[in-house]
């Protein structure tokens, strides 16, 4: 159990990479990149977890009454989830532009077009 989350994070990262490298459709590649991104979230939050801890949010618990997990990694992750979505949007916009200019989103066909 002590390394399971790290292994899952590594698995997600590698699976996303394989998906991107073998993709025949740029939109699918962007989706695979999203899987890669999620691996970093899993890794960061796993590093910050404390056994028996609870969220560092004091709206419904008294400060100091329970052990807390690490808020720093959570802060890193939460902004990245939203910012990552807008970056995905930018990539999708580029894919749409590629489709407009070349009429295909297959990376192999695009390479042939370039010559």
């Amino acid at each position: 159990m002590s390394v399971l989350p790290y292994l899952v994070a590594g698995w997600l990262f590698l699976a996303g990479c394989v998906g991107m490298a073998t993709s025949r459709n740029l939109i699918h590649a962007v989706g695979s990149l999203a899987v890669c991104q999620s691996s970093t979230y899993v890794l960061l939050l796993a590093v910050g977890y404390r056994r028996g801890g609870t969220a560092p949010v004091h709206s419904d618990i008294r400060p100091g009454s329970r052990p807390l997990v690490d808020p720093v990694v959570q802060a890193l992750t939460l902004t990245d989830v939203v910012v990552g979505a807008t970056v995905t949007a930018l990539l999708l916009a580029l894919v749409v532009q590629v489709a407009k200019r070349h009429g295909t989103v297959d990376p192999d066909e695009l390479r042939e077009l370039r010559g």
Partner: protein
Amino acid sequence: MSPRTRLWVLACGVAGVAALLAVTVWRLPPFGGARHPYGERAVEAALASRVANAVASVNFDQRAFDTLGEQAILFGSVLGTVVVLRQTRDERRVEPEPAGVAGPVRRYALIALPVVLLTGVYVVAHGQLSPGGGFQGGVVAATGLHLLYVAVDYRALKRVRSVHLFTLADAAGEAGYLLLGTGGLLAGTAYLTDVLPLGTFGTLASGGTVPLLNAAIGVEVAAAVVVLLARFLDQAIEIVTSGEEGDRAPGTDGAPGTGGARPAGGTGRADGADGPHRTGRGGAG
């Protein structure tokens, strides 16, 4: 490089990284360990500045400058999307067809829309107390607005949404964050320092500038998402290049590979398969 060689290179790379990861994970701090020096100090600092949600304190007080960078990325990628997906000279707009939607869906959307918007505001406003904040609440509110597209039609959404205003709101949110930061400079300390009175712990006004920065981010994120989706919606529904069909009659092809089997019809096919579906959906209510 042939596809076969490429696969071999990929396999070697994946195997190498997997081996390295497998070695490294045993050296990482064990999962669930009790030692979190940064976390403990961050919680102490959060309580000292009377912010109940330590994550919000890290984001908008202790690491506020980092968040400034994050939201600059957000602003930049929205700007990039807007530029990439603009309407070019050889493109024109077609008026989207009204979509018939089943009555219950439409009624549900019209009741749910204000509920989602208010939930978004609630999440932004209580960012420094309970889980939530500007990033989350902004996305919630912006998604709620697009219920009008998914459950009514694009024309209804366009009637209530002024992209121009939302672009301004996006910039205003960004500017608000930057200007709130200068409060620290005016008070004679560092940029983005929390200089306002801290208030009572656990209330809406606690934490000095944290709720204000949260609100600025909330406005920016909500507006950014609306502008982004406006560009995608325009491209997918309204904008056509010469020779391309509009939203009136897109075909029903499934995967791109199967589409080629269809016989090439005339450009002006009015009996595209989408038309009957749309009107048919109206009858379902």
